[in-house]
């Protein structure tokens, strides 16, 4: 017989159950776990020696990480998924209706099914350990909490607080969970067991915890009566529509499940919840979100090269260039990786600004209470700098973030290499300059690599790691591992113009400009793409990135790839009028006090455009997405990314390609290569040869092959 997940001993009438999935780093709710728990509960119910049950995790910093997603993706039909949900509900219902008190001591992540399990217990104690987090992230996978979460959480903590967690797929720190009333007690880890068992003893003696209705008067008005709840539901529905543009079915379905349960009672609510789960589980959106989740999980282990050597540890990071990017990289590296950072710039005033900007990343985390005061003091002391190379003699990795100019970067490389230890890695943060060109200035080209960060650095999860043909494998793995420590998901891409993200973005942005010149209004272009699923439209994106930066990038790509990526003359006209985008306070949009206002109508005459209502939204979407797909297919064939998975992941996390569509290549598969090619050919005929489908697409159209097999 296999090693059991649930083991227990009986002490003072309490069955102390340890949950410990053998051979796995975390506990998950899987089919075998459910079967075992069912049997265990039956034994504990009938064992007269057992007066109460206490659950603990045997993992050092994990309670239950949720349901086993591998099992969930195997489900084929809505009916099967509904049944899966109903069976889970039924099992947890046995805990909720258990004739003896059930207590739970939570240390480490307690999310998804883990929380739904805990919600069924009589009493919950959690530790204040930083790894203890509690939440229901199901929405992020396009489903809803289907094991009673939609029913029991609002009943426990009130409607508004529950919706806040369920609809956003939130996971909160233990302290917050305690404040919300999700757990009954918050204790330091060493006394978790004792406090939990003491509670069990009291419960055996007939004591019952009294819980106040949370939220005070407002709670009573809004959560505590049907009229108030109606108002809350109406507001929530509006909020969902505004955020998802109807592209994501899970949030409204979860809202329905909560509402139905509050109106018709627990068991009817559970049935409704299971039905909702079943319907969502087989939606295309959920499948796509799960695929992205799997890509993310896989990328966390993928070093980006074959037979990767184990990475070296980075203790000290040197950053050259303390400007916008350099300081943001510094601040992120300190807060995420806890690494010692040394900033260097040409003069001390710049260093001073850079240090303050880097520290503001730490302060922001402190203000959001994500780090303690002690952490803050420690982290702030990790940021320092100078106008000289002091401290670089001990740097293990240097990230250069100076002006985007080959000569300057080469000069910096030469200077810093003279003071670095022999083993140190030099990473250049660039979006357009070939790494091999920078490396030419190096006496150790094997230790030169590219790291393309995205702005704002603290928020954007993607980093492109770009080895040149001379970069050593150890340099790649060390850089990838460090990017991960910075909280990023790096993808390793080929050293070719624009790398991956800017390469596929350029034709998309160019096409947006073409549409603009063709009579589409700025609003209509941006609205069409936001409706498609982008977080911001292409024109607004240009403003965000900065028109000078985008213009330079497009030019580099035009020089490399010729006519098909020729940028229309729009950006030049804009730059002449000093319209650099948000950072300059004016671009395609107007800005006031750092906030985006409406479109600036002065732009149209400036670029020679006459908005006349056309082309239509569907046409805009088709032109822009197909331009991107065509280039993505070409770049993939050239080996710019190692797999469609990497490429799609980068598109989603680099510039927000509609996650529920899975990325441009996944989207192309959904459309089908034949249709993509046919549409591109039509567009080429109508609008010009830039749409001529690439060989990689034609080949797939001919053979019927997909990017993902």
């Amino acid at each position, binding site marked *: 017989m296999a090693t059991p997940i649930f083991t227990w001993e009986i002490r003072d009438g309490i069955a102390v159950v340890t949950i410990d999935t053998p051979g796995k780093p975390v506990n998950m709710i899987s089919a075998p776990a459910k079967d075992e728990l069912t049997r265990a509960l039956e034994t504990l119910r009938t064992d007269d020696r057992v007066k109460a049950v206490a659950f603990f995790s045997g993992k050092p910093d994990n309670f239950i990480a949720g349901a086993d997603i591998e099992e969930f993706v195997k489900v084929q039909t809505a009916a099967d998924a509904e049944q899966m949900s109903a069976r889970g509900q039924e099992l947890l219902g046995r805990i909720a209706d258990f004739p003896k008190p059930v207590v739970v001591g939570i240390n480490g992540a307690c999310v998804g099914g883990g929380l739904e399990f805990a919600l069924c217990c009589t009493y919950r104690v959690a530790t204040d350990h930083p790894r203890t987090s509690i939440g229901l992230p199901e929405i992020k996978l396009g489903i809803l909490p289907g094991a009673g979460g939609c029913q029991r959480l609002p009943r426990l903590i009130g409607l508004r607080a529950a919706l806040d967690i369920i609809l956003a797929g939130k996971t909160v720190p233990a302290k917050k969970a305690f404040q919300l009333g999700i757990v009954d007690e918050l204790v330091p880890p060493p006394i978790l067991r004792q406090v939990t068992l003491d509670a069990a003893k009291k419960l055996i003696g007939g004591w019952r915890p009294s819980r106040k209705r949370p939220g005070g008067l407002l709670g009573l008005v809004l959560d505590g009566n049907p009229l108030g709840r109606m108002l809350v539901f109406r507001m929530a529905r509006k909020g969902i529509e505004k955020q998802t543009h109807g592209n994501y079915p899970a949030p409204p379905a979860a809202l329905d499940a909560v509402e139905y349960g509050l109106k018709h009672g627990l068991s009817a609510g559970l049935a409704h919840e299971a039905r909702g789960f079943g319907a969502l589980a087989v939606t295309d959106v959920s499948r796509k979100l799960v695929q992205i989740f799997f890509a993310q999980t896989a990328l966390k282990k993928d070093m980006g090269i074959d037979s990767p050597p184990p990475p070296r540890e980075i203790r000290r990071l040197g950053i050259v260039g303390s400007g916008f990017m350099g300081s943001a990289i510094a601040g992120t590296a300190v807060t995420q990786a806890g690494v010692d950072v040394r900033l260097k710039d040409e003069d*001390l*005033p710049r260093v001073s600004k850079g240090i303050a900007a880097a520290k503001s990343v730490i302060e922001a985390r402190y203000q959001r209470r994500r780090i303690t005061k002690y952490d803050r003091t420690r982290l702030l002391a990790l940021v320092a700098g100078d106008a000289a190379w002091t401290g670089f003699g001990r740097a293990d990795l240097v990230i250069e973030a100076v002006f985007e100019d080959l000569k300057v970067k080469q000069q910096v490389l030469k200077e810093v290499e003279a003071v670095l230890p022999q083993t140190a890695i030099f990473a250049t943060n660039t979006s357009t300059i070939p790494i091999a060109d920078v490396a030419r200035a190096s006496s150790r080209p094997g230790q030169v690599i590219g790291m393309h960060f995205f702005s704002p650095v603290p928020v954007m999860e993607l980093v492109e790691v770009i080895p040149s043909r001379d970069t050593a494998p150890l340099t790649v793995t060390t850089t990838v591992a460090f990017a991960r420590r910075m909280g990023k998901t790096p993808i390793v891409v080929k050293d070719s113009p624009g790398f991956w993200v800017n390469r596929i973005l350029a034709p998309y942005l160019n096409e947006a400009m073409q549409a603009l010149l063709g009579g589409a209004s700025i609003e209509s272009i941006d609205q069409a793409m936001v409706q498609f699923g982008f977080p911001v439209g292409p024109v607004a994106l240009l403003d965000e990135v900065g028109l000078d930066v985008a213009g330079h990038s497009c030019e580099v790509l035009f020089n490399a790839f010729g006519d098909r990526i020729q940028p229309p003359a729009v950006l030049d006209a804009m730059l002449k009028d000093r319209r650099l985008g948000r950072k300059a306070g004016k671009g395609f949009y107007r800005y006031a006090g750092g906030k985006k206002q409406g479109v600036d109508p002065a732009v149209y005459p400036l670029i020679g455009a006459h908005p006349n209502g056309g082309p239509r939204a569907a046409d805009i979407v088709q032109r822009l997405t197909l331009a991107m797909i065509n280039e993505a297919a070409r770049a993939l064939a050239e080996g710019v990314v190692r797999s469609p998975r990497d490429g799609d992941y980068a598109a989603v996390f680099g510039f927000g390609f509609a996650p529920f569509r899975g990325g441009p290549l996944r989207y192309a598969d959904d459309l089908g290569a034949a249709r993509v090619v046919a549409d591109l050919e039509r567009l080429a005929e109508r609008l010009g040869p830039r749409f001529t489908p690439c060989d990689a697409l034609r080949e797939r159209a001919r053979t019927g092959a997909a990017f993902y097999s």
Partner: protein
Amino acid sequence: MPQDAPRGRRVAIVAGCRTPFAKSGTVFKDVLAVDLARHAGRELIERTNLDPREIDEVIYGQVVASPLVPNVAREVSLLPQLPKEVPAYTVNRACASSGQAVTNAADQIARGHADVVLAGGVESLSDIPILHTRRMAQVLTDFSKAKSLGARLAILARIRPRDLVPVSPAIAEPSTGETMGQSAEKMAKENGITREAQDQWALRSHRLAAQGTADGRLTAEIVPWFPADGGAPVTADNGIRTDTSLEQMARLKPVFDRRYGSVTAANSSPLTDGASAVLLMSEDAAKALGYRPLAYLKSYAVAAVDPGWQLLQGPIWAVPKALERAGITWGDLGLLEVHEAFAAQVLSNFKGWGDKGWNVNPDIINVMGGSIAIGHPFGATGGRVITTLANEMNRRDVQFGLVSICAQGGMAFACVLERV
């Protein structure tokens, strides 16, 4: 008096640095002393490219410690760059505190208890505890113990307006009640130091400090400070005056004796914020880690006099002791750093040494100015003068140098540095 016996290991001064020294209430007015101390320590590690794991102990000097950070050295050793296991303590020998920190470090190295020690000192007179009166303190203590609302109100009713006047620590002798300035005034009179002589010395201090700043010798020891808001970095001392003259100084009124006095704000050291750090190693450790020491600590001595006599005349006793322990004579010295609390005190010290038959040659004393111009953060000055002396001994190729510091309580500190 015998030389140190048994002889320990030779102690190398590897490097030193300091923050800019700023007049209190100016650029560092919002900066905590602990942050200045950490900055000096960390930047010294950076400048020397030292692996912080080599550090065995941290010793800092501070005179007016914040009650919230009573052991500032521990906060330095808790810099994230250092292993958390590095022990640390803070010493207070008044104005000689960081000199004391350096020699304590040297003792540990000489005995073989440590190979590498980070010493230093800090003072922020912008960050000093402001106290309540005894009466107010009593009221507040009673209040915290009161059980009922009525009792609390009754206690609060005891407060009188005069109780709200805060008490700030004065720079005065606890034993005699005499302030530093009054002591200097007394010494000027006792030793016949004229107002003109004092102003001359103060002017010289400013001129030489300005010169040392302009030619980069002084600024070489300074690590820039970056304000929290990202504003203009602080890179130089702000007390040094390039524009002052004897005439201007002569116009100032004496502070401590308005009728017959001669001590003015211009010929005294100002209240100052700043921190210093000095890296010390055993000779072998320095060699093994690849450092070329600036100098070796040859000897040191402390002395004290009756605070009711001439409070700052202790160097007359400390210096001969240090010379004797070094086995050298006054005439062997090629360079001196004499702490300038007041010009009256410097010139009184000179007179005392002259009375011993020693030839006091100003050309080799405080060649880049002194505390009157540069400033005097009590706990940090020792580290500054030792660093300045060691660096300048190398520039001038001097074999023996001396540091002399007078201190509160009638105390004094002296040490002899030697280059190989």
